[in-house]
């Protein structure tokens, strides 16, 4: 049976009400039922039940899902779309060997070759990966102290560590200021989220198992929403996996920190799908930033930006279409006071950065923890790599 791994009860729990439709980025740009959560669920059910064949049309519908999980919190019946789509993507990927090869290559490219290519200016400008800092700084971590409130581990990951080291620094700074001893995870340790997203199950689970082995029982602070969501899903054995903003939000009250004065700057907060739809912790970012800045939400119900793991590379045209829509929504809340767009996920930051309109030159795309570090006056003011367009040419 095709899609035998999908739980029939999960499929049956969809009442076809359509309340998930507007929360799906691919439906939003096409208006097609075959590009909607309701449609995809019905297709899986129909193929599984032998009503329709698994043809290219079905494959395309299912593969073009960004896996943003926007449909998950939108569904009043609590249909577990995540449990439905994951085995489907695995099965589709495993029946298409060529695709897997291409994707494996892509991932290697993502982590190493791309970095080099970028430095050599070989990377297309619209590629959704930010430029790598020419001089990568070593992370400075204050010495542990017995008086502190405990130890946390900063999960460095692969993409974050390579491209967003300044975010790591800001994370270390803020956590230290909150009174925690910070330890770093091993460099290069990858959680396997991207692989899982692309349906390459085997390396994904190996990588995840490795993280579990190294850090069982610890509090793992993650500042990449994508990694956090993936680790959370496979959290058994890990002490606690928590997004950095959620952690700060929880512990800010207990700390003797002087929050200083509010800034006049306005921050537009982009809620990463992995925070909003999977971890359900996006409000923490709003709560924390609200202490220091005027915070604006994007008036599109948290629709995905089209980054979705390797989606922006795999389905470039749709991803572009989706992010254009996102940009329009952002544009509607912009004015002269807005200085930052904050995003808690490297994938989203890269996607927004690659497709930012020319008119946004004065805006900086930052991780919210960088804004907190800045507001707390952390001595180390690392410049974000996204300072306007200047360094992108």
């Amino acid at each position: 049976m095709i899609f035998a791994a999908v739980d029939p009860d999960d499929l049956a729990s969809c009442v076809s009400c359509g309340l998930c439709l507007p929360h799906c980025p691919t439906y939003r740009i096409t208006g097609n039922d075959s590009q909607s959560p309701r449609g995809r669920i019905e297709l899986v059910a129909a193929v599984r039940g032998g009503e329709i064949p698994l043809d290219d049309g079905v494959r395309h519908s299912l593969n073009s899902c960004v896996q943003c999980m926007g449909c998950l919190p939108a569904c009043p019946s609590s249909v577990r779309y995540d449990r439905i789509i994951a085995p489907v993507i695995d099965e589709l990927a495993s029946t298409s060997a060529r695709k897997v090869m291409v994707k494996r290559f892509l991932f290697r490219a993502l982590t190493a070759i791309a970095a080099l290519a970028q430095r050599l200016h070989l990377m297309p400008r619209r590629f959704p990966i930010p430029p790598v800092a020419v001089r990568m700084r070593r992370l400075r971590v204050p010495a542990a102290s017995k008086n502190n409130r405990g130890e946390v581990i900063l999960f460095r990951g692969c993409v974050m560590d390579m491209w967003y080291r300044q975010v790591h620094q800001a994370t270390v700074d803020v956590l230290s200021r909150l009174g925690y001893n910070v330890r770093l995870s091993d460099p290069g340790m990858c959680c396997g989220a991207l692989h899982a997203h692309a349906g390459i199950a085997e390396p994904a689970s190996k990588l995840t198992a490795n993280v579990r082995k190294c850090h069982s029982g610890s509090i793992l602070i993650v500042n990449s929403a994508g990694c956090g969501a993936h680790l959370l899903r496979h959290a058994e054995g890990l002490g606690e996996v928590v997004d950095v903003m959620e952690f700060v939000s929880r512990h800010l009250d207990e700390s003797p920190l002087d929050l200083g004065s509010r800034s006049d700057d306005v921050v537009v907060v982009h809620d990463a799908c992995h925070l909003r739809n999977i971890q359900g912790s996006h409000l923490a970012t709003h709560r924390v930033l609200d202490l220091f800045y005027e915070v604006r939400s994007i008036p599109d119900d948290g629709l995905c930006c089209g980054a979705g793991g390797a989606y922006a590379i795999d389905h470039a045209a749709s991803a572009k279409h989706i992010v254009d829509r996102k940009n329009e929504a952002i544009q509607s809340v912009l004015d002269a006071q807005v200085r930052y767009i904050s995003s808690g996920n490297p994938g989203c930051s890269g996607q927004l950065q690659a497709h930012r309109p020319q008119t946004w030159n004065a805006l900086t795309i930052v991780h919210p923890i960088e804004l907190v570090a800045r507001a707390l006056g952390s001595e180390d003011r690392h410049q974000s790599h996204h300072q306007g367009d200047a360094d992108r040419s």
Partner: protein
Amino acid sequence: MARRRLSKKLEGSAIGIARHELHLVSRDASNIEGNASGWVKPANVEEVVTILRDCHARRIPFVARGAGTGLAGGAVPTMGSIVISMMGMNRIRSVDADGRFAWVEPGVLNADLSRAVARHGLHFAPDPSSQQSCTIGGNVANNSGGPHCLSTGVTSAHVLAIEAVLSDGSVVTLDQESSPFDLRGAFIGSEGMFGIATAIKVRLTQNAPHHATVVVGFPTIDGGARAVSAIIAAGIVPSALEMMDAPITRAVESYVHAGFPLDVGALLIIEVDGLPHGVEADIDSCLTICRQHEASYIRRAQTDAERAIIWKGRKTAFGAIARIKPNYYLHDTVVPRRRLAEVLGKIGHIAAAENLQVMNVFHAGDGNLHPLLLFDRREEGIMPGECYPESTVLVSRSVTSCRSCSTKPALPRSRSFGEPSILRVWRIPARCCRLGRDVEIRSPRPRALGCEDSDMTRSKGLSSGVLRFEPDELIVTVRAGTTMEELASVLGSKRQRLRIPAIGTVGGALATRRNGPFPSDNFALPNIVLKIHAVDGSGNAFVAGGGTVKNVSGFDLVKLLVGSWGTLATITEATLRTEPIPGCSRWFVGAGDVGALYRPALVAPCRNGWCVNLEGHPDDVAQQAALLENYDEIAPPAALEMIELFSIAESPPERLEMTPAIFDICRRLKSEFDPDNTLSPLLSARWGLA
């Protein structure tokens, strides 16, 4: 073959025939499955015209599709129809914030429209629970309403004009001016059978400055239902009165975590909005009444976020059902408010006897019930056919116990429950599109009556008198010959009214759609007309509409008759929705700007500039009056005199510039209703319809 030729013509939007796409467009949110033979997503009017012309020439049936959230299978293609998805036409064409209207394409989502105009302090009032997903086109086709239509009315009160493509490909604009009959009104609720809407001019409503949203728990559903009746009977019309029974509250709570109490028998959500003093006074009265009816739990939303989550809970109720069973069968029916408790009791009783699981979540303020029957389609013997008859029994048995009700057909073949007259699906207007839809059109069973006087302008000759005034239901049934003055005095005795000038007879007011200077909103003609008894040109008596506070789907004959100047039928009796008279009413005359006022009762041109009527709580009225610069207060009679001079046009339109397509429809309507041209022959001749 036909399909291939079609696709050639439509380069931009070729007919899709991919197996999986057809599988998906063959279903919507109902339990009904169709069999589409193709689907197409036009991007503009021209493409719609091409498609319909081709379909017409080849007699290929077609069905328009919005978001496919309809619960009655309206968008499901039968007989191998072609599905025309309107999702490719989703632009807001223009917004006039001062004039408070917008032109939108049919694929715009209801909630997106409100979001887009929020910065002007406006919104689109109809708020079906599916509002985040459903389209304006679907709203128009289904005449959708939502929790807040208790005070603001259903879609037909908020659509000013429709640009539509008819089944032969002709493009028409339907509004109240372009034809002698309100074809706009007839289009709304016609479920895609009149034509395909390609642009809609919607009325935008000012956002209320103040809200009170309260969740009230009752030990029994009966107590809640009685409280609802008592609130309306006390002359308060909240903006929403929604009820959920205990099982559905539990299902919803586990999804939204709104803090709904789980130990109550029924939950009532009361929302009052408007100006602060009036809101506070009304909510206080509502809560006093609830306490008198043994409310066991009262919680008022303190923040906007809290209010939003309460509404999210209510609006996702249908979806949350799957937490209990994966499929549901929905009935949608309106019963008189005061019989809510009784009907609900009966439904529960029958369901128990038939061993069916039933849940209730409904618009209590309108008496609009939605009993949901839960089932699992995978269970042996449930599908098809076995569940339906039982559920049909359920509602027909429970609602026929009511004197009157209107039913939105929830099955593809419309089934009528109770008397045939409750179905509002009558004659097919001139061109019925959707050739393939096997909707059964019920025509009235005419009872021949001697028709002595068929000229509406002489309707005084008809018998007069108020037949039934039900102040608790806000409904009055009156003979057409009754004078407006007499009616006003009867209503006034219970502090109720109609906002129609007290001139002439009721029949005359209806036939000429005489709103006078009053704004054409939910409290104006034709929106206050619920049911009409009339006699057509051949002497057949018929009934249109239903005698409950809300009527929605079906060809709206009432709209066609109101404002037709007696050329289609002679109205003999009408049931009208009344309105409580507000606590305070003051009149002002002046010349300044009135844009800052919140929904004033009336702003009319007069010889001194503008005549403004402010109504509501005395303190609110005083505050609003302070916003009027260079205005003088005057006595109501003087004010009315001033405006009437200017705005009550008593004569019928002289010659109408009708487009050929509209003219054709009107002529066919005329010959359908009055083949021998015995009704208002002069006017009919003047309009070229005779």
